[in-house]
């Protein structure tokens, strides 16, 4: 079992690292105007982050080899996307997603 001090220092250090990543851009940019080029770049952050978080969950990593497909997540994505298109309701999308994956897990 790792020592309590080691664990506590790690937690504090990690907390500081994530906190600074979260607040520094907001604090620094408060009194600064970003150039048009940077704003244009940042405009793509939402779709880029959301789609990479989704796509990353569709694969199983094997470093040095091609990733294999995480079939349950890929299959559960289909009814989830359809629900998004049909209802546009985030709550329904999440419910259908969770139910689909649990059904798939039972069937597979």
């Amino acid at each position, binding site marked *: 079992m*790792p020592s309590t001090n*080691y*664990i506590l*220092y790690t*937690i*504090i*250090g*990690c*907390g500081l*690292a*994530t*906190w600074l*990543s*979260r*607040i*520094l*851009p*907001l*604090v620094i*940019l*408060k009194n600064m105007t*970003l150039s048009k080029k940077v704003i244009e*770049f*940042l*405009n*793509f*952050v*939402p*779709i*880029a*982050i*959301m*789609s*990479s*978080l*989704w*796509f990353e969950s569709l*694969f199983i990593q094997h*470093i*040095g080899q*091609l*990733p294999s497909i995480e079939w349950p997540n890929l299959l*559960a*994505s289909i009814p*989830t*996307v359809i629900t*998004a*298109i049909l209802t*546009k309701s*985030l*709550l329904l*999308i*999440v419910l*259908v*997603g*969770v139910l*689909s994956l*649990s059904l*798939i*897990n039972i069937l597979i």
Partner: protein
Amino acid sequence: MNNSLTPKAALREALPTIFGYIGIGAAFGIIGQSSGLSVFIILLISIIVYAGAAQFVVATMLLTHSPILSIILSVFLVNSRLILMSATLAPYFKKESLIKNILIGTFLTDESFALGMNKLNYTNNRLNFRWFHTVNIVAYVTWIMGTLLGATLGSLITNPEKLGFNFAITAMFIGLLYLQIISDRSIKINVQLIVILFTLVIVYLGLIFIPANLVILLTTILACYFGTVIKHAFN
């Protein structure tokens, strides 16, 4: 979603995120407990580090007795996409006080960021502290409750993945991504779709060489750059 930026609207709009936070928070609690960490330490990680996937990295590296600095560096890298999100948010909170900016940043998550970016399409491109902070606090509280649930009752559930809750956050990103595509008028739909296709290719290729946690950051940066290039090609 509508144009109301009140805490009440925020509570309603944050509702779908709760499943994901409870589900993944509980998963973290269960992992922490099965790695032999005490409930207190597990909770402390959720309260202080508050970093989703990076917390799993912390728990794993603590067990292998990794040096403190290398744990901190890993967490920083896994979570450095927060820098991009925080920078993207900054223009919308310029008029709010420094303290409020710090509070928004302190509780910022992938989900509240995505929800906020979606909200912009309904509010004539405006966000305020009250709305965003409410969404953030809902996230923080449910994350900690999920962690507590997992750390205390986790041993009762033998196979938590079977319940499908770990898909809640992915499902939310799918929903928010779709809503973003159909409502963001600042970027043409065909440009957005090409960028999304590009991320798929980069994620796939990236997974061959780079740890999964870093693939997201790298793909985001490449996709944003690619987006600015093709945006001009389409104009």
